[in-house]
């Protein structure tokens, strides 16, 4: 999908510029875009370096583990396939709390750390795990309690009630987050149905339902990349409830 969007953005831009007879903007835009990309990354360095240092302190001091334990029921529900005591849980929680407070700059490094920890659980390092997709779903919907930046901008332009959008933002963000989680769950279960786990059917209570699903339609559209090439010999269903993803 990302490949298609990338090519489409460039090619449609190229065609438009060519049709309007100003093809020269493409060259300029390309280099401008590249500059912006690097500038944004360099802007991120300070924030990333600083917050990751802070996060290491929180981790070494045992703070993340403490918060993690406190909020683990919620995160265990959202991330059923991450072991409860895994460091990823702490980072996921910090990422969520920072997003809640509207601290986008602080949320990003924590989210990246969470991704790196989730990657250690990933059998196929090039393909995202469902847990990674859930983390991204939460982040793209960006649950927000306090839209700090927007309140600041509205203050700048002399709004009579700069914070009046807090309520509407909260409702909109809650609906979007709910939709994201629901969609994430739907895709998750759909992939499970399409690619039944290679563990004995006796261990999955859903086995009868899966086998009765219309497999002919499903198999024709199965993503070729998602099929695990790794033999699932090392699987043990004893650890955790949802081991099917960790081949």
């Amino acid at each position, binding site marked *: 999908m990302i490949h298609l969007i990338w090519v489409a953005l460039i090619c449609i831009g190229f065609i438009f510029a060519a049709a309007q007879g100003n093809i020269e*903007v493409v060259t300029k835009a390309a280099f401008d875009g590249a500059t912006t990309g690097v500038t944004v990354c360099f802007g991120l360095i300070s924030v990333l370096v600083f917050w990751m240092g802070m996060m290491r302190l929180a981790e070494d001091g045992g*703070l993340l583990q403490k918060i993690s334990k406190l909020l683990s029921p919620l995160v265990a529900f959202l991330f059923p396939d991450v072991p409860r005591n895994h460091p990823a849980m702490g980072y996921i929680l910090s990422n969520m709390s920072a997003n809640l407070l509207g601290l986008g700059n602080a949320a990003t490094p924590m989210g990246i750390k969470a991704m790196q920890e989730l990657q250690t659980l990933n059998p196929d390092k090039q393909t995202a795990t469902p847990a990674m997709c859930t983390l991204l779903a939460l*982040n793209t919907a960006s649950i927000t309690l*306090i839209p700090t930046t927007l309140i600041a901008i509205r203050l700048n332009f002399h709004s009579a009630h700069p914070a009046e959008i807090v309520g509407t933002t909260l409702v909109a963000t809650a609906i*979007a987050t709910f939709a994201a989680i629901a969609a994430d769950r739907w895709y998750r279960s759909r992939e499970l149905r399409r690619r039944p786990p290679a563990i004995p059917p006796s261990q999955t209570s859903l086995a009868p339902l899966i086998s009765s699903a219309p497999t002919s339609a499903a198999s024709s559209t199965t993503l070729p990349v998602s099929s695990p090439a790794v033999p699932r010999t090392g699987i043990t269903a004893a650890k955790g409830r949802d081991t099917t993803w960790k081949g």
Partner: protein
Amino acid sequence: MLNFINLVSTWAIPVILAFIPLYAYAKKVPVYDSFVDGAKDGFSTAISIIPHLVGMMVAISIFRASGALDYLISWVTPWIKHWGVPGEVLPLGLLRPLTGTGSLAFTTDLIRTYGPDSMIGRIASTIQGSTDTTLYVLTVYFGAVGIRNGRYALKVGLFSDVVGFVAAIAICLLVF
């Protein structure tokens, strides 16, 4: 309420910044070494993101500069006029998933042009506050760990953007 929110937004980060080192120090962690150690990771992470971000920024930049984005907007606007939705906010819905700084610039522009307390200003503020730059988030997060196949993450992200966008407009039209 406003006072409370202002209080929270100004105190949240300082409190976190003071509390984390103090807590770690109390737990007998060599705080400075620990901080520097973690901070090193931050640098390499930022550097590893560069290729991903450059790739995406180039594509978006070409798309915007060519006039394709403007055309897309002019094509969609008539469709939603009779729902009572101001067409001016539509480009924001298209920009928001693509570029964070771009959409923030667009929101600021709308607020400046129509006023922060106008319907357009309120809708723009709500949209900007309640959704995130899906493509950027995907690029940065997946790029940082080298994921190439993002599975359904993009679809979920874009779907929640659409839901958030529609919800933001509907709620603003209802409340204000």
